[in-house]
């Protein structure tokens, strides 16, 4: 925060511009209001311009993040104000022994893997399809953004009906291709089914978006890279994997980090997939309850904000670690040829 307080700091000795130096070099007493205004404009105006961002972000972005740490060390039970205010590390200790937390962590990772891997691979394929000379090029690109602009709440409700047990289209389609089994699949009964259903929603939503990110990177690959590879006699598929992907590696890493951050905070899909959209339990036995959902339940249904804050911190640390590992892994894998 200290850096954001820099706005009223004393003016630096180094005058910003040449003209500014001229102005201040003149006789001090002859400074007209115009000069003063000018000096103010040069020295302080930049801080005024950035001030709104830092103030608002400080109050509603940064401060809560830090204050969250304080809350996590407190007994912040909304329904029981009689508890001693400071809990020390009790909330964190409770976390380690909390089955629900580990279950939610397991679910979050399971769904994350089922969604991010196919999502990014398919996005690569779609991007390479788009990376051709196409008629009505813009419309193809706009078309694959349909899921991206569709409100998550709306699409999740559609999928929720799609994956219903008795009259769902998913079971009907499975039946058509002979995979129906003797009883209709209950998509909300176990981890396997519910994870697939939720991962489907995530994949649907983000493939097009990621494809555009990849496409942008693909198009900035210099043409001579491909020309040079002519000697190898690479077909389109090999061209994609051996030239294109390694060349767009930074963007691949970027999307991996993005999908890690997003995937580990998954909330809307598991929340609304529940038949009772406000239960926040993620199935009768927490089959698909994610950490973000558990935080919501602990904080706003059990009204234990201190514990919810501790969970948020844990989630934050996990995201950092996983994003780091993924970055390393992706660097290794996609840059394999270098």
């Amino acid at each position, binding site marked *: 925060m200290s850096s*954001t307080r820099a706005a009223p700091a004393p003016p630096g000795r180094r005058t910003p511009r040449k003209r500014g130096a001229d102005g201040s070099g003149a006789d001090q007493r002859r400074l007209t209001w115009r000069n003063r205004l000018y000096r103010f404009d040069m020295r302080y*105006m930049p801080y005024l311009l950035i001030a709104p961002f830092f103030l608002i972000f400080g109050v509603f972005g940064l401060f809560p993040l830090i204050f969250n740490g304080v809350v996590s060390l407190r007994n912040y039970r909304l329904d029981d104000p009689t508890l001693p205010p400071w809990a020390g590390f009790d909330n964190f200790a409770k976390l380690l022994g909390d089955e629900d937390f580990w279950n939610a962590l397991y679910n979050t990772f399971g769904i994350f893997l089922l969604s991010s891997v196919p999502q990014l691979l398919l996005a690569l394929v779609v991007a390479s399809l788009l990376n051709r*000379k196409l008629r009505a090029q813009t419309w193809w690109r706009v078309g694959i953004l349909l899921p991206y602009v569709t409100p998550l709440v709306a*699409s999740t*409700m559609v999928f929720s009906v799609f994956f219903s047990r008795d009259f*769902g289209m998913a079971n009907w389609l499975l039946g058509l291709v002979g995979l129906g089994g003797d009883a209709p699949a209950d998509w909300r009964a176990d981890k396997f089914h519910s994870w697939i259903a939720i991962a489907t929603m995530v994949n649907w939503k983000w493939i097009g978006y990621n494809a*555009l990110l990849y*496409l942008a990177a693909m198009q900035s690959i210099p043409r001579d890279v491909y020309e040079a590879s002519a000697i190898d006699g690479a077909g389109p598929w090999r061209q994609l994997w051996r030239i294109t992907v390694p060349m767009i590696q930074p963007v691949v890493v970027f999307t991996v980090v993005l999908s890690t951050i997003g995937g580990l905070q998954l909330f809307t899909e598991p929340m609304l997939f529940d038949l009772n959209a406000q239960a926040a339990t993620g199935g009768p036995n927490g089959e698909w309850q994610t950490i973000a959902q558990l935080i919501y339940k602990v904080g706003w249904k059990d009204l234990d904000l201190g514990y919810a804050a501790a969970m948020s911190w844990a989630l934050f640390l996990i995201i950092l670690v996983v994003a780091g590992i993924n970055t390393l892994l992706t660097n290794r894998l996609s840059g394999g040829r270098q």
Partner: protein
Amino acid sequence: MSAVDTVRRAADAGPPGRNRARLTGRAPQDTAAGVWTYLLLATTILLSAFPLYWMFVIATSNDEALAKIPPAVVPGDRFMTNLDEVFSLQDVYFAAGLVNSALVSTAVTASVLFFCSLAGFAFAKLRFKGSRWLMLFVVLTLTVPNQLGIVALYIVMGKLGWNGTLLAVIAPGLVTAFGVFYMRQFILNTVPDELVESARMDGATTMRVYWNIVLPAIRPALAVLGLLTFVGTWNDFQWPLITLSGTDFPTSMVAISDLASGNYVIYRRVLAGAFVATVPLLIMLVVGGRQIVRGIMEGAVKS
């Protein structure tokens, strides 16, 4: 801008050639798409559009159509009836939700555009002490998901007495680190230093430079950032749910989740509501699709 230039070049490259068999040595973007490419792309688009289409089908159906196998795949004729039911539900405030979503998204978008372009301008074109560190700070906060402070945010809003009001939803969205970053990059690349300098010579104040030189130059970036911000704000769910659920002023997303969690969950209603809340964004995609595509693609190349 390189990506866009490339796109344009590729687009201008004339009709597709006939020699798609020989891919080797040719950049993919210079290779004309074949039948399979079109087919696969068309399938992708169909799969992308299907849930939206089916949402409409359910939104237009009656109960019987939903309780049968095989499921209905053709729209019914009950859209207006279903919609009427949604709007007349006293306990869901759906109409208010739509208005509120529009208000929140508009306020947030306007504010993000203004404040972020101001800060972006300062970082790109003005010299001041600490600017490098402050910019680094902005970039660092880009990577922190601010959802993680959500518990404390709720407490802060409680102290301010804003929980359950639209202010609680608007305030945290008023500025974004991404907005500042994006604006800085754009201004850095498109507004020539000489132009700023010469305006200075003529005695223009900083705000005048911003108003007369920067703003006109960054209109495309404003369109992109505006569209992305609007879409993102309109679709936001978790925080609005926490602070607005159970009140009389939900956003449309919260209102839909209310529709889906009463004692009578009727999917044709839920999805009629969902469809109405989707339409504004579909219109934005049709009108501003080019900009949204460009925004996403530029963001990728630059960051």
